[in-house]
C-alpha cells in the first residue's frame, strides 16, 4: 500500500493500517487500524468503550451517536481516518467520577430508559442539544432527537427527561452561577 500523509502531515500508515491519534473523553488515544474501519467499531473493539451501540448501521437510528469536535455524528458512518486529531465524546464521558450527568439522572428519574439500547445515543443527542441550547422548547427537543429511534417507543418519557435535565441544569446555574458548566466544556 502507498504511504500517504494524513491531515497533520505525519507519515501514518503501513501494511493497510493507519495510526490514528485522537482524544476520547478527554484522554489522548492512538489506534492502529484499517483507515476505513468505522469509528463505532474502533470505540467498541479497540478502545473497549461499549456504551456506544450499533442499531441499524446505516445512520437511521442514532444508537451510535457520539460527539465529534462538538457536533453530533453517527459513529457508524465515520471512517476512523476522518477522526484523526478529533475530540470525541462518548456516553462513557458524560459522568464525572461517580456523579452522573444531569441528563443521566433525569433519564433514570423520569423513566427515560427502558431496554436501554437507544439510551446512549439519546443521551448524546440530548447533550448536543443542551450544549447549544440550554432552554429548548418541546419542538426543539423533538427535532434534536428525531434521528434517534426508541424501539420500546418510550419517546414521551425521553422528551420529558430532557426537559427535566434542562430545568435541573438551570437550577444549578442559578444557585452557583460562578461554576463553569463542566459537562459541556468537553
Amino acid at each position, binding site marked *: *500500500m*502507498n504511504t*500517504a*500523509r*494524513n*491531515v*497533520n*502531515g505525519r507519515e501514518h500508515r503501513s501494511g*493497510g493500517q*493507519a495510526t490514528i491519534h485522537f482524544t476520547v473523553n478527554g484522554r489522548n488515544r492512538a489506534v492502529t*487500524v*484499517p*483507515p*476505513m*474501519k*468505522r469509528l463505532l*467499531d474502533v470505540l467498541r473493539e479497540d478502545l473497549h468503550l461499549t456504551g456506544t451501540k450499533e442499531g441499524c*448501521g*446505516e*445512520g*437511521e437510528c*442514532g444508537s451510535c*451517536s457520539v460527539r465529534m469536535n462538538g*457536533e*453530533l*455524528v*453517527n459513529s*457508524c*458512518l*465515520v*471512517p476512523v*481516518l*476522518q477522526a*484523526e486529531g478529533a475530540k470525541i465524546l462518548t456516553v462513557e464521558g458524560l459522568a464525572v467520577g461517580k456523579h452522573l450527568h444531569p441528563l443521566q439522572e433525569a433519564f433514570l428519574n423520569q423513566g427515560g430508559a427502558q431496554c436501554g439500547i437507544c439510551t446512549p445515543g439519546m443521551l448524546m*443527542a440530548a447533550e*448536543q442539544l443542551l450544549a447549544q441550547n440550554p432552554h429548548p422548547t418541546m419542538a426543539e427537543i423533538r*427535532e*434534536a432527537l*428525531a*434521528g*434517534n429511534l426508541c424501539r420500546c417507543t418510550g419517546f414521551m418519557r425521553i422528551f420529558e427527561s430532557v426537559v427535566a435535565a434542562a430545568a435541573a441544569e438551570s437550577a444549578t446555574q442559578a444557585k452557583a452561577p460562578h461554576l463553569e458548566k463542566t459537562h459541556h466544556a468537553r
Partner: protein
Amino acid sequence: MRGNAQEHDLVAPGNLGAVLDLLAAEPGQWTPIAGGTELMVAFAAGKLNASKLVSLWGIPDLRFIAVTGDSIAVGAAATFLDLRRHSVIAAELPLLAKAASWIGSVANQSRATLGGNLVNGSPAADSSPALLAYDAEIEMISVRGARRIPYCEFHTGYKRNRLAPDELLYTIYLPRRFKRHTHYLRKVGTRRAMAIAKVALGATALVANGLIHEIRLGAASLAPFPARLMATEAALLGQAIAPETIRAARRALLAEVQPIDDIRSTAGYRRRVAANLLEEFLLELSAKAKRP
C-alpha cells in the same frame, strides 16, 4: 454481508491540490468521500464498489461559504448544518436553509455535504429543488482547470453527471437576486425527519403587472434525476394567475413529469401530488401579488 475495512483503502491528503493530483494520476480509480452518509451505508452493507477512497473531510479549501455582492459561493464540502447556520442563506435563500433542515437528522446534517448530495445524484435529493429554483451554477475542478455550468445541466441521467473522472465538484454559486421573489418548497414524505421524499417541489417566481415575469420550478422524484420543469415554466411565463392558467399548468406538469413506482410511492400518487404542489404554489403567488 458486512463490509470489510481491509478491502478498502482510504487516504486523506488534507488539501485540495493533493486530492486533484491523486485524481489526475489515476483517473476514475479514486472515489471521493466527504461526510460518508451515503458511502459508509453502502460500505456497512458490503456493497461499496470502490477499493480506493480519498477523503475530502477536513479540507478547508472545500468547506466554506463566501458571500460577495452578487452571489453566495458554497464549497462542495460545506455541511447542511453549515448551511442552516448561515445568516445570509437563512435571510435570502430560505428554501436552501429549509431543505438543509430536512436532510436526515442533526447527526446526518453535521456530516452530509451539499456537494455529496449533488454528486450522489439521487432523484429525491433534498437540496436539488432549492438549487434549481435559485438558478444555481456549479464549478468543477481538476488539475486541468475549472469550469462552471448551470446546475440544471449537471445531472445527465439516473446517477449520472457531467464530472470527468479526474474532476471534483468544487463550488456551488447561488445568485443573490431573489429577495423580491416568492419562494416555495414542500417535500412530501412519510415523516418530517429522516424521510426520503416521495415528491418535492421547489419554486421561485416574480409577478410584475399581474403577469408571471419569472418562474423556476425544481422537482425531486419526478424524473430520473432532479430537474427543472421547463415545459411547465413555459406554460406559466407571461400569464396572469387565473383558474384557467392553473389548469393549463397542471396539464403541462402532468405531461412533463416521469415519476416511477418504487418502494416509497407510486407514479400515480406522485403525479397527483406534484400537480397539487404546483397549484398550492401558484395560489400563494397569486395571494402575495394581490397584497398591496
